[in-house]
């Protein structure tokens, strides 16, 4: 079964385009779940390749938490983010830690109640969405990630269908919360579409 490849000298290797997403915050904010939902939506419902990796501290709730999704039409080798195209920051600590890895002109989605200070703000496309407050009004802060996914959707609509995200949300949240998570998703989407996010 071993594969042997060879390449003529001087030959170029085709490099696959990647779209790189990083989500970071505290454990319990749904950071890992967003990554899984995006990954599943791209992989199963859009026919693309995606790799989702996570890192978290020994404490599951309250510790620093990060999730990354790399999307490509081709094969994905390095599984982590190299230069993020999109960064969702749920805490000031997360923003401070990872902002340097967001490429210039990249999308930064944040909650202004927990992220107050964005250094060199003009370098990025910054979208402010009060995800925590909106989630609280819908039924609890645990729906914050679905609000964020909704607010994110118009920004990546050229790559993914709304139905793909809805399917992935439905498959990755507890069955009894599907309806309310989808409502949170819609609320976030409406907020972004109405242009309130900027």
């Amino acid at each position, binding site marked *: 079964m071993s594969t042997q490849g060879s*390449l003529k000298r001087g030959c170029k290797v085709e490099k696959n385009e990647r779209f790189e997403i990083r989500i970071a915050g505290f454990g319990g904010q749904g950071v890992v779940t967003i990554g899984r939902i995006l990954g*599943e939506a791209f992989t199963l419902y859009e026919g693309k390749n995606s790799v989702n990796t996570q890192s978290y501290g020994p404490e599951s709730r309250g510790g620093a938490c990060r999730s990354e999704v790399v999307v490509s039409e081709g094969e994905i080798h390095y599984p982590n983010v190299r230069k993020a195209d999109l960064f969702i920051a749920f805490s000031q600590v997360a923003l401070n830690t990872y902002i340097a890895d967001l490429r210039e002109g990249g999308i930064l989605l944040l909650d202004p109640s927990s992220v107050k200070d964005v250094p060199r703000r003009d370098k990025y496309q910054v979208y402010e969405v009060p995800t925590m407050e909106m989630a609280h009004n819908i039924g609890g802060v645990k729906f914050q990630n679905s609000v964020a996914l909704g607010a994110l959707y118009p920004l990546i609509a050229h790559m993914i269908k709304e139905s793909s995200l809805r399917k992935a949300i439905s498959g990755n949240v507890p069955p009894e919360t599907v309806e309310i998570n989808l409502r949170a998703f819609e609320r976030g989407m409406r907020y972004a579409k109405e242009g309130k996010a900027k």
Partner: protein
Amino acid sequence: MPKKARRSEAATISPEPHFLKPGKYYLQGNQACIEGALMAGCCVYAGYPITPAVETMEYASKRFPQVGGRFIQMEDEIASACALIGSSWGGVKAMTATSGPGFSLMQEAISIAIMSETPMVIIDIQRAGPGQGYITASQQDIMQARWGHHGDGPIIALAPSSVQEMFDLTIEAFNLSERWRTPVLVMVEETVGHMWESLIVPSRDEIEVIERKKPQDLGIMPQDYLPWGHDIVAPMANWGEGYNVNFVALVHLEDGNISRYSPQANYHCVERLQNKIEGNVNQIARIETKFLEGCKHIIVCYGAVSRTAMEAIIDAREMSGLELGYVRLVTLWPFPEEKLREIIGDVDTIFVPEMNLGMMKHPITEALRDRCRKVVSIPSLGILHSPEYILSKIYEEIS
């Protein structure tokens, strides 16, 4: 609060065993290995939870009963590994998954499984050490895989690098284990264990599944059966099928007799075990190569790091025209020295990026020291190397 399940309900086994249907799935590495194990016909999981291998155990607790298998949470990792030995001698395929500290506790049972020639599969989702270390990724157990168990016993260890390979190589691990009657280790980094990626599941009839040889398969009558004889891989009798079953982890002769002390018996017994695996390294071990033609510099890698290495190789060609060759060890042990020497001619530098302080660098140096100017280790602890980091170390060395 949901009603607490009664004991009898918890043990219910679905009447229609359901394996994954062919198709594309989105799974975590820690889960994909369980699906691979089920496809390979494994029906016992005995384990003890530990981060970052918890998802494997959790998923096994759901999936094994669904296909008519058994899931047992043991009191610790020692008992888990011993339960695999018992299950295997009971005639079924068995597995567990653990991480560093638990892997240490399993070493005695691994040694006993080597000596008693017990097929079983252990998956080590490696975390950083020593001690309790960190729960982040590492490749720090690969020498323990080879040398951690007491005595002079050989081992087979595989290194998957993707969710697909967690499935594929777990099947291969069971096949090797049954074919060579030996414990097989799957050495995974936390990176791959916690990775979510697509998994393509073929239909069950497309998957090759190897079963252990029994004496009746070879036409050996019960009165003629030598529990440790007949072939370099002795046929293994099941309890209850008319053959004398002889479980021995002491030095033994072909008939299983342990009462005659003789250094020759010791030599014969251990040498046969060693030859069984090391003497068949070319049948057992696999390596993958790419872009080797005309390269002066080569990266030799394994596991998750091989994905970074490939990214670095592609970058180097694109950015500076530097042509690096790629060699990936799919099998870590037995070490494919001869195959490596066939593939790698005269090169300048061999780079070995690893998530440890340079473990595999040693057998690679031993195998290839006359084929290159230098073997250079590129270590990283606690995190997967970035392609930039690997390239910076390479440029530093060759400029």
